[in-house]
């Protein structure tokens, strides 16, 4: 079975600074997708960024980028120029052939003004 581990329960960053959230996963599959979801207090999960495992190039979406290390099974999220609106729970998630998302336990990000 696939597992996703987020070892940072909480992180804090100064507004306008950069922060990196960590995620590791375990799988025996060779083809899969990885995601970072943001869950603000409104509770709705919002997709931040996705990475296809067979693509070596790291995904980027505006201020958000990932460092995908397939051999190490690591998938970290970097948020540049942090904004107050970035404060939320961030979940790393995996999907393989089973078509179901497997989530980590989340990292709560606080942004200090």
């Amino acid at each position, binding site marked *: 079975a696939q597992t996703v581990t987020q070892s940072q329960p909480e992180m804090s960053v100064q507004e306008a600074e950069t922060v990196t959230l960590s995620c590791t996963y375990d799988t025996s599959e060779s083809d899969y997708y990885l995601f970072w979801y943001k869950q603000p207090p409104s509770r*709705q*999960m919002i997709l931040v960024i996705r990475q296809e495992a067979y693509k070596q190039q790291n995904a980027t979406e505006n201020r958000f980028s990932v460092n995908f290390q397939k051999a190490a099974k690591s998938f970290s999220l970097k948020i540049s120029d942090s904004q107050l609106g970035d404060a939320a729970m961030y*979940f790393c998630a995996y*999907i393989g052939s089973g*078509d179901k998302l497997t*989530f*980590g336990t989340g990292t709560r990000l606080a942004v200090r003004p």
Partner: protein
Amino acid sequence: DAGVTQSPTHLIKTRGQHVTLRCSPISGHKSVSWYQQVLGQGPQFIFQYYEKEERGRGNFPDRFSARQFPNYSSELNVNALLLGDSALYLCASSLVQGFGTEAFFGQGTRLTVV
């Protein structure tokens, strides 16, 4: 366009009761999945439905059941509620059932069992 809508947003039930949660997917989306998110944890997969058929089931007891209607909306039913069923229940819809298809989430139903 309306996103994924779930109802009700909150409800309180007593142990042993039954509950029905509802989900309307984004227009045109044919796949609906349900997740349970216990406080302080990540969401756990419960069910996936596509074209009105169950396509996946997570490690949940038979007290949990679901169905999808011809208009692709879905219901999640939980019988004989336990205190441990207290959680945020999330519905996600996607255009098709396919590898890596993006899932869009609703705001969830917060269920409290007392």
